[in-house]
């Protein structure tokens, strides 16, 4: 049963525009959310995270928004760059789960020049 869902398998955005990647979750016990970025033939790299006590976290061009009532989070990339082209995974954890993460299936972002 997929508890973290990324319903868009792919997204294409022009360079300089905003990229918005979405993620939904079903388990109300999740209290920490993360985004990872993955290039082909490499391991995922941590991008940004947010605790359930916040609704926004910003780090440079990357901002994550959390809407707990809707069980929805999104990653905004502004401005998008060609080097941002990668697969983005949303992940969630419960505080007492021993730090095991539940991952979504990923969204492949293509930023075109």
């Amino acid at each position, binding site marked *: 049963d997929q508890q973290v869902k990324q319903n868009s398998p792919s997204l294409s955005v022009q360079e300089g525009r905003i990229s918005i990647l979405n993620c939904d979750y079903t388990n109300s016990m999740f209290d920490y959310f993360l985004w990872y970025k993955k290039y082909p033939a490499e*391991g995922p790299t941590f991008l940004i995270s947010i605790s359930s006590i916040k609704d926004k976290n910003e780090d440079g061009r990357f901002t994550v928004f959390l809407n707990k009532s809707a069980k929805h989070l999104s990653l905004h990339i502004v401005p998008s760059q060609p080097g941002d082209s990668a697969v983005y995974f949303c*992940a969630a954890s419960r505080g007492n789960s021993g*730090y095991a993460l539940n991952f979504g299936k990923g969204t492949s972002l293509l930023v075109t020049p």
Partner: protein
Amino acid sequence: DVKVTQSSRYLVKRTGEKVFLECVQDMDHENMFWYRQDPGLGLRLIYFSYDVKMKEKGDIPEGYSVSREKKERFSLILESASTNQTSMYLCASSDNTDTQYFGPGTRLTVL
């Protein structure tokens, strides 16, 4: 910087062979994880470990076992490899926070 290394980037094995995938982290992290990544399925947790000699099943442990004899090393074992275990295998580690750091992955092909 956290460094997680995996013993092989690419591996080809035959059906029925015993396969060992090794993972080493250099940051004294308590927690270590094994995932597999398949197209359209994302990352699925196979096993994880909180401490030396401790292990917990993840979502898809069938056909796999693990070993953690030292804190820095976490091994994934395929007792008898099958073609449906062809996949990208990813190891990760974390201290007692939620952020996991991943190795580069091992692309395993079982013929």
